[in-house]
């Protein structure tokens, strides 16, 4: 980093602070709104300082839910979201590291066509193939289940590609040394490749967890039961009320709660992959 002096340094800091304010202000407003009385918000008289209803609102949000629209405590939605996001992230990593291993280290017929097939699916996100995917999941009786939520999203060309690139940088001699040391294909994968991919897996986990957590369209389609809905769907549902007043403090509290797990994952995993970057193992 270049050390700058005096005036220029202040300018840089001011610009950074403005950026932070732009990003952080809506989050702050959401938090403030979640601690106010609903009537006050509905009147348009919300103050910019936190109100006194923090415990009351969060207790109701987490353990009871809204009185009308969703009928589900947010704790349950968070659990659903968490299970889905974890299944997607872990499933994607597991499946793509195995397929990348197959493509890089084994010679089999149609190896390259298979690789290109995987590559092409990059261009087909869930939204494009939503009808056939829904049909398959419905036919397998996986609607309203965790498997139905996670399975169709698990295949990942991006992650396969990433692991493939990484495996290709691992020196061939390591494989050869393993072969001479009497390690078969599974042993080499388990004892050498997996430990070496640790930092890649951590980085990927962060991205994939957030991706899974933020899923909206797919859960919206395949979950109909209240107790299977995810938090992203919940927020949306809470806002649409027919006659009654939208319970804004609860909506905002849910939004704040929905932010916490991704933030937690980023903070925890960041340490791991920064450490991974510092001690390059190759």
């Amino acid at each position, binding site marked *: 980093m270049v050390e700058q002096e005096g005036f220029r340094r202040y300018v840089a800091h001011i610009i950074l602070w403005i950026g932070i304010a732009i990003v952080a202000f809506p989050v702050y407003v959401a938090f403030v709104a979640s601690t106010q009385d609903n009537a006050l918000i509905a009147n348009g008289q919300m103050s910019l300082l936190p109100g006194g209803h923090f415990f009351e609102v969060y207790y109701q949000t987490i353990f009871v839910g809204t009185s009308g629209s969703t009928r589900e405590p947010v704790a349950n939605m968070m659990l659903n979201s968490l299970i889905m996001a974890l299944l997607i992230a872990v499933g994607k990593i597991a499946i793509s590291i195995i397929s990348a291993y197959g493509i890089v280290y084994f010679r089999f017929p149609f190896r390259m066509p298979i690789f290109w097939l995987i590559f092409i699916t990059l261009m087909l996100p869930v939204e494009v193939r939503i009808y056939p995917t829904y049909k398959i999941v419905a036919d397998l009786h996986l609607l309203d289940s965790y498997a139905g939520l996670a399975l169709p999203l698990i295949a990942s060309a991006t992650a396969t590609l990433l692991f493939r690139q990484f495996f290709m940088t691992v020196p061939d*001699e390591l494989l050869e040394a393993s*072969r001479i040391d009497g*390690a078969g294909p599974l042993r080499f994968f388990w004892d*050498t490749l997996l430990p070496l991919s640790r930092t890649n897996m951590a980085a990927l986990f962060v991205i994939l967890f957030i991706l899974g957590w933020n899923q909206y369209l797919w859960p919206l389609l395949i979950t109909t039961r209240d107790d299977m809905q995810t938090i992203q769907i919940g927020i949306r549902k809470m806002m649409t009320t027919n006659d009654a007043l939208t319970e804004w403090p609860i909506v905002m509290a849910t939004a704040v709660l929905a932010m916490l797990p991704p933030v937690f994952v980023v903070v925890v995993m960041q340490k791991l992959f920064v450490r991974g970057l510092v001690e390059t193992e190759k």
Partner: protein
Amino acid sequence: MANVTLRNVRKTYTGGFEAIKGVNVDVGDGQFCVLVGPSGCGKSTLLRMVAGLETVTGGEIDIGGKVVNQVEPADRDIAMVFQNYALYPHMSVFNNMAYGLRNRGMKEAEIKTRVEEAARVLELTSMLERKPRQLSGGQRQRVAMGRAIVRQPKVFLFDEPLSNLDAKLRISMRVEIRKLQRRLNVTSIYVTHDQLEAMTLADVLVVMNGGQVEQVGNPLAIYEKPATTFVASFIGAPPMNLMSTRADEIKSQLGGGAGEAGILGVRPEDFAITDQTPSGGVALPLTVEAIERVGAETFVYGSRAQNEQRVAANPGELPPGEIIVRIPGSEAPPIGQQIRVAAIRSKLHLFSGDGRTRIEA
């Protein structure tokens, strides 16, 4: 303890490229065999075929009386040291050495004894808990050696193990490897492109070029009687001076059949600066073009009066018409001076015109 015998070994890649064109080598029990040659000559491929990392497309590889063409590397009872060491980066030094033993289901107590013994021999005892990245190049090299030793294999295979080390370390490790091999008395095959390493390490030297064996034998015997011009210019530094015997001045001096031979070779140290012409020997007038003093000896680069055509294109060969003379001490004629150099009859090497056959005069 085992012999390694290669019988007409061939390697043809699927594209049709023939990397190894029928190699026959016999390495006796406990011998140190060095494969040497320029890059691309197939020496590493051959070693990897012995290790089982490359398939054999023709001939037989025999380790300890058993043909191993179809045997997995792990079951050949060999250990290999790689050029880039190929240590497992995420394992400690101890685990790097123990890994192969664990995969073979050896008892943990026995593993500990063996690894500690190897670490003691290689002076790695204080580093057993470190990771490879915390070691210097020389230490990593020793760990790679240790990984080979603990296995107590029938054969050690070395694939240019010293080429990533700096010059000083390379010399001391070279001596270490030789001492270790003598003490363990394990048959070894060692690949290098460095002819000095090859000369100093080998019991049996195999000079390879273009996928074929040029010459096999004791290093000094090869040095004294190279079978082809390729061997003559590859073994020995600076390389042997090669010139056409058809040049008039040489032809007249050699006389008879020798004059028609084709190529005359003289090692730089076999020339002396003198005005006399030894009987049966060769004397040449030279113009001194460059001097290299290295202390104990001096290299004089001279050009011959007549330019002549290149007799054969070998790696490491001198440009046509240029002659190197190696003289002891640091006294040398000034640049530009005309000198005469001469070599006696017994120091002349004669080869056929294509450089493929040595002619004993």
